[in-house]
């Protein structure tokens, strides 16, 4: 099972994914896909960042990686968090090159 760590950034609430080097990125394609052995360690890192007030409510989500290399969350809810609302005019979609602070 492939997983990723998802959270909301504290200061602006943006959906973020844990990436290589324990950084957080806003585009899911920049995030790190974890195997089961890595997942718990990554979540522990995220919890530490939660305690350090970088993010809130980190959790592991299940993903599948498509042919384009972009991970896609299995649950609809997390899919919507990653790719934005399924209605509207596109202004609500995440930018591909998010600011990876």
């Amino acid at each position: 099972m492939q997983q990723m760590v998802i959270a909301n950034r504290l200061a602006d609430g943006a959906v973020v994914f844990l990436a290589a080097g324990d950084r957080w990125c806003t585009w899911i394609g920049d995030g790190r896909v974890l195997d089961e052995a890595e997942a718990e360690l990554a979540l522990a890192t995220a919890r530490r960042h939660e305690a350090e007030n970088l993010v809130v409510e980190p959790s592991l989500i299940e993903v599948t990686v498509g042919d384009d290399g972009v991970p896609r969350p299995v649950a609809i809810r997390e899919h919507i968090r990653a790719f934005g609302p399924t209605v509207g005019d596109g202004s609500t979609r995440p930018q591909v090159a998010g600011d990876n602070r």
Partner: protein
Amino acid sequence: MYRYDEFDHRLVAERIRQFRRQVQRRLAGELTEDQFKPLRLKNGVYLQLHAYMLRINIPYGTLSSRQLRKFAEIARKYDRGFGHFTTRQNLQFHWIKLEQVPDILEELASVEVTTIQSSGNCVRNITSDQYAGVARDELADPRVYCELLRQYSVLHPEFSYLPRKFKIAVTGSPIDRAAVAVHDIGLRLHKNAAGEIGFEVLVGGGLGRTPHVAHTIRDWIEPENVLAYVESILRVYNIHGRRDNIHKARIKIIVNQMGIDRYRELVEQDYAAGGVKPLLPTDEIERIAAYFAPPDYERLEDIDDELERLAAAEPAFGRWWKNNVAPHKQPGYAIVNVSLKAPGAVPGDITADGMDALADLADRYSFGELRVSHRQNLVLPYVRQRDLHTLWRALADLGLATPNVGLMTDVIACPGLDYCSLANARSLPVARDIGMRFVDADELAAIGPMTINISGCMNACGHHHVGNIGILGVDKRGKEFFQLTLGGSSDKNASLGDRLGPGLAQEDVPDAIRAIVDTYLDLREEGERFLDTYRRVGIEPFKQAVYGSVEEAAA
């Protein structure tokens, strides 16, 4: 409309200063999320799926053009260029950054708008009839009492930590446009034989996972005693309401557990007891009433004949006039509903440009005032009948003249799983699909009055229980399904819908609605609305129509 006095200004300014420091402490790590959450909720700040959400009160749905322009500015500057009007006459911004919230609150305060008590376990925004002050059938303007209740309940020390949220609605008309029977307290104005006004008090209504229609706890309370009586209801609830289980904490639960008679007994005991009462002397009622004095109307005559001629010449105008314009108490004037339900639109959403344009139209045609309806539309309350045709053209140019107010595509929908962290399913695509499926204006008119209400989870923000057709989104093993209910109503004879059958997949919902509509059209008798036909024939024919057709489609 009401204008802040020095006390209001000071209270709001102090509150913002407090919250600015609380946000700073949170960002600096001096407060944990658990410590901060109740503080942000008291200020209308939620964390949702994509960002923070800010819920703004529009007390009793009355809004000035100046306030609407400020919302447009905030939408552009701090959000993504749009806002969402809700079923509680609130406005929500869904893409807010926490670090910017204190600045946004300052901007809102500059136009006398707040987010205080728009969430949390306290008395929420007091809601009312969107036609308050202008409805032809109105006995007295309910906003006077809404405003008194607002002042009374904001930061009230005794009621700042209620067991759960508390919603109050007031109507001044026999036709209930404020859904008072599904509120924790509903106040309904009546006139007695002597011509005096008083309130019927309803208690224990609500939707959510255990829906109840409210009980009348008292047939008559004089205006001067209404705050004192509401206080007694709140006090009994504060003492007896459950705090151990969030799902059993609303007043409807204890009212229905102990029975309305016992609850009434406790309230009457408290009300009869001594102590300081929040009485309302007549001069205080009159002082507040002065804020809601009618605008400077011109002396005009109704021009029905001319409007009939215009409608005959231009059927599109005729349809809009028939559906979106309501009779006004002042001769020569009309109430104009602005539909936020264009085909394919998100119910209740409006862009910043749309807000600005509507604010301009309100200035030109409606004394600079607007209203928000609990059905997620806007209202221009003071339009001269002779301006109706010009206004219609201007609204049509903005895409805001969809002639469907009160018709089946005037759908109520909560934000659902597209935004909300509580939701199980997406309500907005269902609303969109219904709007796109039923676009023929003549057919919509032939179907007549019908409400469709959609909620994305059992918390029922989309009021699905009281929709003539209710749609509830549920999650079944990771897939979205939609349960239909029929026969709900939030008007004077409020009723909860009956469940039609097993949940349907999203793509099957429009066909099911089609089947329900066709069955109704087959069975209805002269002059019946959908609700009348349903109440006469019951659920069986609809069940057969939907599950027959869906099974056939699946076969």
